[in-house]
């Protein structure tokens, strides 16, 4: 029952950790009329304390590393982290850049990776739907 309701109301927090804005725009495209993820009850809350799903874009620059950890810690359990795009998954287009941590999973645990540079809104939506499917496991983890 508990996870059933939660899966119908995933609130998201979007944080840009140094991406090129491509995936950020696609995240915004999700909120707007054409894709409209509010159909699944998804709302951009922009507040870690209200969020359930963290959509992280960007290869995590050294300066935003600590901020990302803070945001992660401020989000109450159960929570889900989705790394949007290639650079969030493993930092790849920015191979030679000296100031990046090469991926979100180097800093916080990631549940889902969305490939693509930039990833299509459909791919992010697929990831969210998959993430909702993982929710039950997450609730059990949080209860432990």
């Amino acid at each position, binding site marked *: 029952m508990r996870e059933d309701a939660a899966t119908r109301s995933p609130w998201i927090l979007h944080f840009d950790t140094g991406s090129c804005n491509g995936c950020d725009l696609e995240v915004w495209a999700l909120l707007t009329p054409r894709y409209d993820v509010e159909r699944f009850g998804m709302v951009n809350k922009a507040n870690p304390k209200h969020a359930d799903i963290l959509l992280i874009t960007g290869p995590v620059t050294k300066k935003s590393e600590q901020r990302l950890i803070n945001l992660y810690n401020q989000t109450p359990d159960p929570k889900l982290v989705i790394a949007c795009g*290639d650079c969030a998954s493993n930092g*790849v287009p920015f191979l030679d850049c000296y100031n990046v941590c090469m991926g979100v999973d180097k800093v916080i645990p990631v549940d889902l990776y969305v490939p*693509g540079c930039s990833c299509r809104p459909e791919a992010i*939506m697929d990831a969210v739907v*998959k993430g909702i499917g993982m929710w039950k496991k997450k609730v059990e983890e949080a209860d432990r």
Partner: protein
Amino acid sequence: MSMIVSSLKNLLSKPDTVRYPFERTDIPSNNRGRVVWDMERCIWCRLCEKNCPTKAIVTDKAAKTQTITRVRCIQCRTCVDVCPTNTIAMEPVYSEPGPAREVHTYAVGMKKGEYTVGLMPLSERDETRLRKR
């Protein structure tokens, strides 16, 4: 026209939304989605591997395989352009998101469009981090 009129008009007209997972979106046929190999034609020139800007492709001439790390591919279509034998094609379908970073291996002898799925090899840094846990 004022916003009130526009709002009422929107209220009465059909929503602009594509009900995506239940309905297909119009991904154009030339969309740069993901690369696939037709291994029958590969002549092992390694041009794709050399030209890949993100080193997503690994060619293994001995084992006769082409391997691509999906999350490393930035869909620039360079490999398709440089391939002398049209072995590589760009499909409009994008790579699926998933809990693991998949590595797809195309080998000679597989049917067209078939591949084996592996996981992205961990870097040294990853391994030390996992050991710490």
